[in-house]
């Protein structure tokens, strides 16, 4: 465990992801702008029963961009290699709070490569929705160097500079519902 203070972030129990409203997306600088995409098929669980554990997966085949050939390219061996590595995985058991700020330390696995990862963001206090569920919301962001995970595709611009940045920002908007 880290030296950070680990606190109870919500009433003890298991919190399951509301996949309809949650999103796990990525942003990367490309051709002078910011290209964004997301993974539609995500799962996550927040367990606050004994310490705090956050785990999640995203299916590579569910990568969602605006053009089917681009989605196919992102799933190919040049990028995520969906056949060989069908899931992205994240696991953390170090979570620190400071007010509504949250700091998560864990490991991310992309294309079979596992690296430590810190995400920061915000967390809402527990609230009751109109359907009798207890909910919390977690917003997390971080950045990774995609080449650390063997996602090395690029294309030179006329200047010789690469068209696609190596730094990829990961943005997760997670809605958790307390398990019954």
């Amino acid at each position: 465990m880290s030296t950070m203070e680990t606190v109870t972030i919500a009433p003890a129990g298991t919190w399951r992801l509301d996949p309809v409203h949650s999103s796990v997306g990525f942003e990367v600088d490309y051709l002078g702008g910011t290209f964004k995409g997301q993974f539609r098929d995500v799962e996550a669980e927040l367990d606050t029963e004994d310490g705090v554990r956050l785990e999640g997966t995203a299916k590579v085949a569910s990568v969602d961009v605006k053009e089917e050939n681009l989605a196919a390219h992102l799933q190919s061996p040049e990028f995520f290699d969906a056949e060989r590595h069908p899931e992205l995985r994240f696991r953390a058991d170090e979570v620190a709070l400071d007010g509504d700020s949250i700091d998560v330390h864990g490991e991310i696995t992309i294309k079979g490569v596992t690296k430590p990862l810190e995400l920061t963001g915000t967390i809402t206090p527990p609230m009751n929705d109109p359907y009798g569920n207890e909910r919390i919301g977690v917003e997390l962001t971080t950045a990774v160097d995609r080449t650390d995970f063997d996602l090395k595709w690029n294309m030179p611009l006329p200047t010789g500079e690469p068209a696609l940045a190596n730094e990829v920002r990961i943005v997760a908007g997670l809605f958790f519902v307390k398990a019954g």
Partner: protein
Amino acid sequence: MKVLGISGSLRSRSYNTGLLQTVAGLFPADVDVEIWPRLKEIPPYDEEDDTDEAPEVVADFREAIAGADAVLFATPEYNASVPGQLKNAIDWASRPLATNPLRNKPVAVVGASTGAFGAVWSQAELRKVLATTGARVVDAEVAVGHAPTRFDEEGRLVDENLLEQLQEVVEALVAAVAERCDELAAAAV
């Protein structure tokens, strides 16, 4: 194991076809190597012709790739790049991208040219094209330069050093197929 060989040269006494025939003899005895003979018949790619019923020769090409465990390309170099007919054939094979038969397929590229460099630029371009289709491109290269001096009168490659390099490509391709088969079998359990 089945390997499909595709020569990017159309002429009957092509060095690259000879190169493929030479490589075919280097595979283990239980590997079936077929050199696809119809490259010249493939029409120019036109999206309007790329319908559910593709031209017969295109369907045959796609089926030949789909039915192979690996594909081995031998390419000459025209104007520092891939011969148009070979690129055109790959364009046909690659549509639609998400389900094309080259996707995840182990492939390797070798090449021969009459010049000194053995089609290295063409090979590099072809590897880039194949990677874009989603193929698993084996990281190996054999560049047969000065081709007229490397083959005998029957069209067989006779350069011992090049034969050793080709053997390494064969072994890398066989290993890539075995690795993929193991992974698919493990995923199916």
